[in-house]
């Protein structure tokens, strides 16, 4: 991994480090891209700048007619943000479909934009919302539209001495006349890279009526997965303006979107499929918007495994002096631990082998632990990011529930419901499930499936795991839980 790990505490320190190590550093935010690439050997970074202590970049606020999202804002934060729901609905919908719950607790909007994937789920909504990024360097600040910022797959206008600090989304004066929608097409229903993703932001002159479609005043349509970068479908948007959004108009717009597609074959889908699905999908989404059904897939209170934003202040790590608080015990780690992930540190240095390694890329959930109350994949946390954080592992979960000194109710329920077969996924399942139960004491089936969607099991078919969550919910009463 890295040999130098820098953890600046201010923006000015960060940009001066960027200037000092010009082009020789990698920025580590949520780690859901960089740590995957490094563990796969597809990225190397000898010097890392960890942004985790820049808490000023975690804010969501409205200022002077603009919704301002810090670069470190996570999908989980967006999901729970009333401001985002009011002013950036397609972004909220995208965050709902983004990775799994553990990924949503760690990934960042800034990381998603700078990673500049052709199918990054955060990008189409931001482009449709006409968002801009703020880039800070020691010589000043500049602002660039997201649509211009991304120039090619995994390439942006970010200069080596610059830090993406904020995302600015203009606020509309009449939000009730503005409808946004995000649509994700993937080969599975969770934890999947998009084949095509679409975002729409339409402003209407009127809301239409029972027999009249609403009148489009302005439109932005952004489409990912059909070209090297997310595309703004300008001709299709222009077609809509000044017209009532009828099904026929939607179909015409779909054909115009399909004309700008230059898709490729990749492991997620063939180009021909992307091309074929595009026009009808655009027409479908526009019909949903026209009939006000564009928000139906988004629950009122989306499941988030843990507090959307950890309340604990993140202490700054003195050089080479890593301290972890695991299951209530404090551990002072040797310097070699600095270059590890939290997973390897827990397993190799602390002997806590209950946390399992299954994929090292945040897809299987076998390494799920609680980091300051959030369920996260330990394989995608750099150990120094967890400095002084409160960590709970499967070995410590029993004691989270005060009334059950022996076992957590969910552990008991897993035994009784035969929810563990080979058992390798079980610790991660329990850490995700117990977190869900702490937040949603009596989850319905949709919430259970959502809460466990970041955890894979190959043995059970999930039925008995879902039954165990239900049984544990019956067993425990909410006031016994101390999250």
């Amino acid at each position, binding site marked *: 991994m890295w040999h130098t790990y820098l953890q600046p505490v201010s923006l000015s320190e960060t940009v001066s480090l960027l200037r000092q190590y010009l082009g020789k550093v990698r920025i580590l935010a949520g780690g859901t891209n960089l740590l995957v690439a490094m563990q796969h050997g597809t990225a190397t970074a000898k010097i890392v700048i960890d942004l985790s202590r820049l808490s000023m970049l975690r804010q969501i606020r409205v200022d002077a007619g603009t919704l301002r999202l810090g670069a470190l804002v996570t999908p989980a934060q967006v999901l729970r943000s009333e401001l985002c729901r009011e002013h950036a609905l397609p972004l909220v919908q995208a965050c709902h479909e983004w990775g799994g719950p553990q990924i949503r607790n760690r990934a960042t909007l800034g990381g998603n934009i700078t990673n500049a994937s052709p199918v990054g789920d955060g990008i189409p909504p931001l482009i449709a919302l006409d968002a801009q990024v703020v880039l800070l360097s020691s010589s000043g600040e500049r602002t660039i539209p997201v649509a211009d910022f991304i120039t090619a797959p995994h390439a942006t206008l970010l200069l080596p001495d610059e830090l993406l600090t904020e995302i600015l989304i203009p606020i509309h004066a009449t939000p009730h006349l503005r409808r946004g929608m995000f649509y994700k097409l993937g080969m599975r229903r969770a934890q999947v890279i998009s084949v095509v993703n679409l975002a729409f932001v339409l402003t209407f002159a009127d809301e239409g009526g029972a027999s009249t479609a609403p009148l489009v005043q302005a439109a932005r349509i952004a489409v990912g997965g059909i070209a090297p970068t997310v595309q703004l479908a300008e001709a299709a948007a222009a077609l809509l303006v000044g017209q009532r959004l009828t099904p026929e108009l939607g179909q015409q717009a779909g054909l115009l979107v399909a004309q700008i597609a230059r898709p490729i074959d990749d492991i997620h889908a063939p180009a021909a*499929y992307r091309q074929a699905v595009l026009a009808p999908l655009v027409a479908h989404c526009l019909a949903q918007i026209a009939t006000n059904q564009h928000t139906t897939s988004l629950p009122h209170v989306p499941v988030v495994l843990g507090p959307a934003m950890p309340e604990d202040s993140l202490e700054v790590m003195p050089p080479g002096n890593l301290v972890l608080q695991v299951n209530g015990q404090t551990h002072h780690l040797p310097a070699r631990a600095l270059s590890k992930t939290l997973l390897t540190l827990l397993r190799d240095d602390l002997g806590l082998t209950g946390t*399992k390694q299954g994929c*090292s890329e945040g897809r299987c959930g076998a390494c799920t632990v609680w980091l300051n109350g959030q369920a996260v994949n330990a394989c995608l946390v750099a150990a120094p990011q967890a400095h002084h954080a409160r960590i709970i592992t499967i070995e410590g979960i*029993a004691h989270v529930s005060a009334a059950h000194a022996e*076992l957590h109710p969910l552990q008991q329920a897993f035994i009784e419901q035969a929810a563990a077969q080979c*058992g*390798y996924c*079980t610790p991660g399942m329990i850490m995700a499930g117990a977190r869900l139960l702490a937040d949603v004491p009596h989850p319905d089936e949709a919430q259970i499936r959502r809460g466990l969607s970041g955890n894979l099991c190959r043995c*059970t*078919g999930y039925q008995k795991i879902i039954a165990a969550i239900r049984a544990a919910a019956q067993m425990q009463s909410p006031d016994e839980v101390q999250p």
Partner: protein
Amino acid sequence: MSAAAPPLRVIGTPAQRMDALGKVTGSSAYPGDLVRPEMLHLAVVFAHRPHARITALDTSAALAAPGVVAVLTAADVPFNSFGLIVSDQPVLCHDVVRFVGDRVALVVARTAVEAHAAAALVRVEYAPLPVLADPQAALAADAPLLHPAYGSNIIGDFAIRRGDAAAALATADVVVTGEFHTTWQEHAFLQPEAGIAYVDDAERIVIETAGQWLHEDRRQIAAMLQLPEEQVIVRYATIGGAFGGREDLSLQHLLALAAWKLRQPVALVWSREESFIGHPKRHPVTITCTWGATRAGKIIAIEAHAVADGGAYASTSAEVIKVVGLFANSCYEVPNITSTAVAVYTNNIPTGAFRGFGAPQAHFAAEIMLNRLAEALGIDALELRRRNIYREGSIEPTQVALPPGVSALPVLERCIAEAQARFAPPPDLPAHLRYGVGIACGMKNLGYSFGYPEQATASVELLGTDTIERAVVRLGAAEVGQGNHIAMRQIAAEVLGLPLERIFMIYDDTHVAPNAGSASASRLTLVAGRAVYDAAHAALQRWHDEDRPAHATVQYRPPATTPLDPVTTQGKPNYAYGYAAQAVALLVNTITGEVQVQQVLSVHDVGKVINPQQATGQIEGGVVQALGYA
């Protein structure tokens, strides 16, 4: 069961598994959890190319790297080939690599990081060889031979002839043809391969790892090291899933080799990527077939031919292909069948055992053919199934009567009835979503087939003075997650009249547990369970005879199967079958083509269930794994 038999006390109850507590608390030790700080770490140098000749191998830079203790190559392997059925796979390649996952060298270092860094420094020069990317290329007359000594790229072939299919097809009222392609499937057991090995004080090589058959792992490792089997101990840690993917050696022999050579404890924990290329997959199969029926809906003839991609090494391909060929007719009696099947060497990843062992591919083709036939005949597909489905006394394609207990029809009828009662389309469905229901049937053998030696050995020891205080069951049967050990414990407790907690199992070590055969072929509950049952009865008899402590070891051999007669293709392929029928309700998104399964109803004849909770767990897991395959 006769009316006089006492009611069962333990069998049939949802007894809790003894490994559940360790699994829910994280204390169970899987192979990757056995690594200790003093151990040396291994890293495998993989070929990462499909077919090439090794022209140079230079380990000097790797040997000079920090922390490196040794770099092992083919020259270090006492007997450099292994395999489940035929030993055609090099432990470490010295001349030719035949697939991306071929192992070329093994780096031993103080830490895993150092081992992997040094593995990148092992310099291997390759001269590319022509790549056989699919079976058709491998079967071409001018195709190069992947294993020249065998004289052919065919791993195994199989043929059944019953009646005269060609003649019957010529007289059939309706004939339909089809061609079906299936692709690879990865087991993706959650625990990637891992393990440790060391030489103990008695000069025995001990390998602690995961697998599906302790004694077979031991046989292959002993052969590789040219040691007597008694000098090799294979011990299984808690196993994180298998599904057939741990039947072959993957890294167990590499651990043994390094520990034996270096006389130091060694560890190897694979990444998911290494696991993906490190064990065989489900066979891609192409099936071409023709089915013929009378106007009245009697299926009178099938011609089927299957070609399976066996990959670079044999693994269990020669047996899998027999199952593909045997189930060409699914579970329908057809008087005229010609079914041929062949497994072929290619430069793809080897294929081997995976849940179903060839049956899923065959049923996929056959059940769709039945539906096509029904459509061509204008007969309801369920009715066509009813008219042709196996009944008691039906004749298999191998010209013998099915083993008794043919429940295919009642299983199908139950499935239809339950689907009618439980399935309903979702209300207020948007126009772009269409609802549909499908039903299919199937069967699968229990135990090994076609004369492959089949046995399980168990020993039961009863300890106590006046009364039996406890029983020790020794049975070398892998608990891969399926719940076998609780089932064995329940059987022993039932026979011995003891509470479950007084039955102790010794099952994880070749040195102390007898050979129960593999955890595969849906066989352990039936075959090993019977061995435990018989051994418990025998021990109990000795206890009653005051021969104490009472001890009995029993080898159970189920009814014999036979290979097929090479001329007539007659034979008894299997001694038992399980029957199943499934109904699936799903939605199709007509815009995107996405399929969303709404409900699955899976009806199985499982015989007398030992532990209903574990049995339903197996079915639920199998169904969801199959949905992933579909």
